[in-house]
């Protein structure tokens, strides 16, 4: 089989990632062999008991960083870009600190947080309200690793989940998204008019041994991703060392996206 340039780059990239990720324990799998067949994803999937994400807000003061993460996510998942905000589809987006954490009722915010943009995405709650209301089972919490999954084949577009989600993490396709996708990635299907969509913690990339697209795109390790149940994982290490907050903890949803102050 001839190895073309793209494939070569992908292989070296993956190999480098394996080397880079090993010491910080993001990878559940010990070693990634030099050759990964692009066609066979399940050979080296990344697995965890409970996936979680830790965002370092110190490193989010650089606006472009968060923008790049969101752009990477939207590119690999064929997320359309609409001019009209009412039609907007978002898997990852940014928000002012005050707005992202309004339940903290902050009166006097340290100045540095005034300039901090918070990346928001699906929180992959331990107790997801969207799952409870879905009448078709097209969204559910995967028992093996806690990801709140989407089955786009079953979504009937009732939008109960949008009403139930307290984080605004779900978007509805009011219009045919296809004409608004700048560059189509064939690996991931688009959605169609009438279905709901959201972040899936890059479940399809994990299955291929790749870390989520936003984590990969984040500069200065602004976003860490790993197994919350593993005391030696990067995320646990960060949560041990730094003070972290989550969005709307009072609702009892138990978000699994943590923000380091």
């Amino acid at each position, binding site marked *: 089989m001839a190895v073309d340039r793209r494939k070569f780059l992908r292989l070296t990239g993956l190999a480098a990632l394996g080397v880079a990720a090993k010491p910080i324990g993001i990878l559940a799998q010990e070693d990634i062999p030099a050759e990964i067949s692009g*066609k*066979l*994803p*399940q050979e080296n999937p990344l697995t965890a008991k409970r996936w979680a994400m830790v965002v370092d807000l110190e490193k989010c003061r650089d606006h472009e960083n968060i923008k790049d993460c969101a752009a990477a996510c939207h590119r690999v998942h*064929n997320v359309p870009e609409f001019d009209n905000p009412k039609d907007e589809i978002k898997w990852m987006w940014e928000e002012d600190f005050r707005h992202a954490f309004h339940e903290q009722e902050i009166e006097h915010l340290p100045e540095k947080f005034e300039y901090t943009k918070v990346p928001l995405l699906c929180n992959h709650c331990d107790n997801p309200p969207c799952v409870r209301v879905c009448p078709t089972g097209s969204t559910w919490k*995967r028992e*093996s690793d806690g990801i709140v*999954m989407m*089955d*786009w*084949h079953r979504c009937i577009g009732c939008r109960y989940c949008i009403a139930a989600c307290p984080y605004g993490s779900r978007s509805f396709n009011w219009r045919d998204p296809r004409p608004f996708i700048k560059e*189509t990635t*064939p*690996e991931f*299907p*688009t*959605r*169609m008019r009438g279905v709901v969509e959201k972040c899936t913690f890059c*479940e399809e990339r994990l*299955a291929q041994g790749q870390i989520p697209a936003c984590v990969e795109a984040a500069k200065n390790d602004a976003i860490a991703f790993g197994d919350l149940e593993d005391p030696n994982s990067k995320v646990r290490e960060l949560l041990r060392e730094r003070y972290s907050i989550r969005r709307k903890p009072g609702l009892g949803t138990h978000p699994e996206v943590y923000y380091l102050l």
Partner: protein
Amino acid sequence: MYDAGKVIVGLVIFLALLTFPTWYNVATGKATYVPELEKAVKGDQCVADTEYMRAEHMDLLNEWRDKVVRDGERIHTAPDGTKYNMSLTMTCLDCHSNKANFCDKCHDYLSVDPYCYDCHIIPEVTK
């Protein structure tokens, strides 16, 4: 019976007209038309027996879909032991790369219209 001759002639003409489409198609050879399918660009075997694929590929695709999306399994093992990534775009349309001259040709003939491509991407045909 009154006017038996006329009635019988009328009936014969009526039956001839009624069955005209059939006669016409037989006479012009259209009745034996079967769509000619473009060969797969890769491999000499499908992901399952050809007979099975011809009759049951929609069930196989549903099975793939459920396995990938619901169960997180992504590898299909063909009868000959070859392993495939269970993906409509990346696997089926990798070998049957000209969808229009394969899937669509047969589907149009049989008047089947899968809606999968509202979301699943059809790779561009490179000539």
